[in-house]
Structure formats: structure tokens, C-alpha cells
């Protein structure tokens, strides 16, 4: 299989891909703060009720939340492909291992882990399972010896999508205007090459229609300048969506660029796969660094440290409190000592959030209502 060379900034080098390098005008992205996710699945349900409530989509979750290290939808999607890829290394910020395209078997486009039928039947298996057995007398250390964390996932709308590369009939395309990757429902013939090839296992087969579907990045909302359903419905306010630039074009006033490039706090999920995914994660501070490095690359340790120090970084602190405070996509933000502010593309104000929530102390006895107030912790 003849491969092209494309630049992958997440790997710090050129990497193999099936098609020549091409970047969209803008690139859709979501940042998730894993320290705040409680796996309430409001995102999953917001997505489901909006997009996948039809026949054949019953167990289909374009957005899902799984418990790491053992949970996964489909079961073992990550373990399967990591085991196939084998031990790979980074040399500093440059990936010296093989990507999935570079590790492809003869006559294949990409190295594949194929999820079996029953792997799709348990959307939330392994929920809340911890990584080790709790012993009598255990106490908590940092990082935790007995740990788990929640990993919410959508399609990564990759810059170099495996699904686009794998589809033999170009029924999947990446939009020029926002980088969203879509399966053309009238063109798909249900071969499931995308289902096999995507390392994140986000294209899914609909047995009712006999063709494949995937997360559409809520493109009708994006077109209106709004964030996706899974982002705006997140009650934990762990998500922020917008557009990510390449590092050379990073704009520090763009909240996504600020967290991904300027602070390097939000890291791509399994960038070693080589698809340049556009879902970025602020890693959890309590999980073992080795595991986080496998999942988020060599900067995971530094990101954990930066997050711990966020309380002393006014701009970063301000940006983190802006998460989940608006439906509109922010083009830029600024922070002063009291508030964080968000603006749209024209510079119009969208949101203003105080860095510290004001506290009101009220009298124990309300004279007007002649009632006593209770503190209910």
C-alpha cells in the first residue's frame, strides 16, 4: 500500500497517511477536564435523544463515558489496538514508534483491532471498577494506588481520519469549513471498513439500515456558532468546544489554542495512533503517570503539574471557570482579577464569569416571612 507523508504536530514529525496532507479551514475540537467528570452520562443521553433514538441505534452511543482502566465501549477497544501495536516509544516530544498506518500489515491501509459483535452489547460495562483490590487498612496517597477515572469520548474528527482512509468508496468525508467528519448516508454500502479501521471505534453499524453511522459533531449547531449537545448539556461543566489551530498558528486568546498549545494542559487521546485526533483531555491528577503517558503522551506528567498549579495562574484559572458557562463557541477570552470574559468572532461579549462565586450570608431569622432558615449541608 502506497502511503503519503503528512505532518502530524502531535507526534512532532511527519507520519504516513493514505491521502496527501490537507487541513480544513477550521478544525472542530473538544477539551475535556477529566478531573471534573462524574460519569453522570448526561452527555451520552443528550447525544442519544438528539441523534440516535431510532431503530437500529438502540445500543449506539456516539458519545459515551467509560471507566478507566477496565471499562470500554466497545469492550476492550483500547486494549485491543494497543496490544496489536505493541510497545512503542517517544524520544522527548517526538514519537519514535510506529503509527497504526505505519504498522499496517501487508495489503492493508491501517493496523486494526476488530471489535466483536458482543463487544457492542455492553455500552457501560466496567463502570466504577477500580484498578486494584482495596485492602483492609488502605489509605489514599497521590497518585492513588487504587484508582479509576472516567473517560468521556466522542468521535475525534481526526485531521487524518482512519475511517476516511479506510472507506473504499469515499463515502466518508471531512468538511472543509470545520473539519467535521461525516458518513454520507446515501453513499455508504455497509462494508464496515471504517468500523474495522477506526482505532477509537466510533463509526458504528446500524443493523436496521445496514450501513454505518458516526458522531456528526453536532454540525447543525456548529453552523450556528454553538457548541455540540454533549458539551452544552454537561452538568459538570467539564467540556469546552471550539476550533484548534496548528501550533505554528496558535492564537493565545483562543481558549482551545491556549489550553492545547500555550499551556499544553489539554492533550490528545492516543496520539500515537497517528490520526491526529481532535479531542483533548486535561489528565486526572490522581491516576498513575505511566498510564496517563500511554493515553495522552509524554506531556501528561507536566500537564498534571500545571493543573495542580492552576490556582496560582490567573488566566488559566479564569479559563477553567468559563467551561460550561455558555452555548456559543468562544473565539477569544480574557481574564482580569475578578472575572473571565468570552467573545465571539466579531469580538462581541458572550459571557462573563466571576473567578470566585460571591457568597451571601443571610440572617437566621427571615423577618419578612417570619421563618427560620436552615443550613442543610
Amino acid at each position, binding site marked *: *500500500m502506497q502511503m503519503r507523508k503528512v505532518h502530524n504536530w502531535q507526534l512532532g514529525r511527519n507520519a504516513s497517511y493514505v491521502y496527501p496532507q490537507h487541513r480544513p479551514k477550521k478544525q472542530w475540537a473538544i477539551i475535556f477536564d477529566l478531573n471534573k467528570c462524574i460519569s453522570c452520562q448526561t452527555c451520552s443521553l443528550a447525544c442519544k435523544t438528539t441523534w440516535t*433514538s*431510532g*431503530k*437500529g441505534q*438502540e*445500543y449506539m452511543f456516539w458519545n459515551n463515558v467509560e471507566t478507566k482502566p477496565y471499562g470500554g465501549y466497545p469492550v476492550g477497544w483500547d486494549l485491543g489496538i494497543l496490544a496489536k501495536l505493541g510497545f512503542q516509544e517517544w524520544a522527548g516530544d517526538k514519537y519514535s514508534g510506529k503509527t497504526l498506518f505505519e504498522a499496517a*500489515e*501487508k*495489503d*492493508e*491501509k491501517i493496523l486494526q483491532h*476488530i*471489535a*466483536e*459483535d458482543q463487544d*457492542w*452489547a455492553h455500552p457501560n460495562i466496567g463502570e466504577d471498577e477500580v484498578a486494584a483490590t482495596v485492602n483492609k487498612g488502605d489509605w489514599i496517597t497521590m497518585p492513588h494506588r487504587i484508582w479509576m477515572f472516567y473517560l468521556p469520548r466522542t468521535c475525534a474528527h481526526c485531521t487524518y481520519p482512519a475511517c476516511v482512509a*479506510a472507506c*473504499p*468508496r*469515499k463515502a466518508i468525508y471531512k468538511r472543509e469549513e470545520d473539519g467535521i467528519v461525516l458518513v454520507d*448516508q*446515501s453513499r*455508504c*454500502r*455497509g*462494508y*464496515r*471498513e471504517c*468500523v474495522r479501521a477506526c482505532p477509537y471505534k466510533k463509526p*458504528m*453499524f*446500524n*443493523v*436496521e*439500515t*445496514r*450501513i454505518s*453511522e458516526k458522531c456528526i459533531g453536532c454540525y447543525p449547531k456548529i453552523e450556528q456558532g454553538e457548541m455540540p449537545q454533549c458539551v452544552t448539556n454537561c452538568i459538570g461543566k467539564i467540556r469546552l468546544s471550539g476550533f484548534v489551530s496548528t501550533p505554528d498558528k496558535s492564537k493565545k486568546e483562543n481558549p482551545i489554542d491556549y489550553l492545547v498549545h500555550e499551556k499544553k494542559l489539554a492533550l490528545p487521546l492516543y496520539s500515537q495512533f497517528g490520526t491526529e485526533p481532535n479531542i483533548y483531555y486535561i489528565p486526572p491528577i490522581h491516576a498513575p503517570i505511566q498510564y496517563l503517558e500511554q493515553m495522552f503522551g509524554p506531556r501528561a506528567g507536566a500537564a498534571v503539574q500545571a493543573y495542580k498549579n492552576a490556582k496560582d495562574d490567573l488566566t488559566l484559572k479564569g479559563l477553567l471557570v468559563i467551561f460550561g458557562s455558555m452555548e456559543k463557541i468562544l473565539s477569544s477570552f480574557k481574564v482580569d482579577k475578578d472575572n473571565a470574559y468570552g467573545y465571539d468572532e466579531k469580538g462581541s461579549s458572550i459571557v462573563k464569569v466571576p473567578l470566585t462565586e460571591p457568597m451571601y450570608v443571610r440572617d437566621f431569622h427571615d423577618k419578612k416571612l417570619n421563618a427560620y432558615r436552615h443550613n442543610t449541608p
Partner: protein
Amino acid sequence: MLRKIICLIFVFSSVAAFAYAGEKEFVEFSSFRTNIDVGKVRLNDDAWETVIPYKQPLQRQFLVAPMPADVGVKEVFLQSINDGKHIAFRLAWKDTTRDDGIKIMNFSDGAAIQFPVKKEPLPEFFMGEPGKPVHIIYWKAWRSRDHAEGFQNVKTAYPNMTADMYNFDYSIKGNGTDKTQAEKDIFIPGKAAGNPLSVSHKEIIEELSAEGAGTLASKNIENTSGDAEWKNGEWTVIFIRPLNVSDEKSVQFKAGEKMPVAFAVWEGSRMESAGRKAVSPAWAEVKVE
């Protein structure tokens, strides 16, 4: 670099020339003229017993990635008859697994016959080429089972699957239950988009055209009927169509003339699908008597 390309072109063209020169005599079989009504011939009719089966070797698809490392079906037995109005092809091959049920990661057994729309100039044997379309008649085991037992859906695939309710499909009337099927189907994307795979069809054979790999398109006509049976670890499938049809982009047969033909077979349990298939190595020819 240029020298490299020229060199490669030379190598490829000589390989191709060799393949074509070799295959020209390699397979030619006859569609025998018969007195029976071929339009109504059945899978196991006596008519087939007097027709010599021709063995067509198959090999892995070897031109477009992804290519299967190996394939499940290495040979298919061909028979053909015609009555001057209709032509029938009967394909039989060994396959110990019957793959005709839909599930997320189930792949259907299948077989296809390909003809050039125009013999001169002959299109590339693998899926045709731009400006030189091929006409493909394609049988899929899923469609045979649909025909026998009703269109398979999520309920037949996963009888124990649970869902609280579907939009506009409630047991109590109101809240949209009176909407038309088309309005309800908006929640079933393949149907809403009019994808031919998402709806049931009269025939078990799909007609398609292609002008190169990746350009396959359903023709939305159903001139080919068929029947299929899996018995004792063997599939037998018949394809029946008129010698001539009004559609310009369909194959037209003429008595006394030869028609180039190619075959493909998919073994579902090996996850064969699309280009992961067994193919005849080049154009063969069928002589319509």
C-alpha cells in the same frame, strides 16, 4: 524518479499483457440454448442436470487495498442456459458456513457476475474504468433470507435487545403516532437518505454499475431475478435476466456472440466484504448459443 515510473509502467503493462494473453483461452464457457422457458427456470430443475458445469478458479482480489491475505472460496462451478429471450447463470461453490443473518459484525455470503456495458473497448476487468462502465448483478445471502423470512431488522438480529420506545411509535395514540411512515423514518438515517440497502426489494439480486474501484452504484432497476439455496455445505445461486433490456447501461446479449464476464464470491464468516473477496483472475467469456 521518472525512470522509476517508466520502468514500473513497463513491468505492469507486461504483466497485464501476459495475464490477458494467458486468460483469453483460459476460460470460455457456453450458455446452452434450451427449449424450456428460462425465465421461469428453478434452482434444482432437471434442465441443469444436462448442462456441464464449468470450473472457474478464484483468487484473492489483488489490485486495490485492502486486499485479503487469502479467501475462503477458491473455485466456483458455472452453468448457463438461454432460450433466446432469457439467460440464466447457475453458480455453485463450497462454503461450510451459511452467513445470511444480520448482526453488527456479521458479513453476508455473496456472489456477483460482472459484464462490460460495451465490449469494445473492453473495460478494465476489475470494476471497469472511467467512461467504460461495467454492469454487475450481485446476490447477497442477507437478501435471500429477507425474501424467505421477511426483511431482517434489529428485532430479528437481537431479539433480546430492549428499547423503551421509538419516536412517534407509542402504544397510546397521539403525540405524533399518526405521522406518515416517511415522517417516522426520519429517525432511521439510511431510510431517510433513500439508501437502497436500507429498504426491502422485490428481487434478491441487486443491479449495479461501476466505472472503476470505489464507484459502485446501485442501478435502481430490478431486471434480474434469482434464487439461492444452502445445502450440505454448498451454496447454489441462479441469476436470470432477459437477453435484452431497454436500459442503456445494462448488458445486452446476442445469440451467437461471446460476452466477457467476471465473477466474485464473498465468504461472510471470514469477514469478506467489498474488496476483500475472491475473484476470477481476468475477463472470461460466455458464448451465447
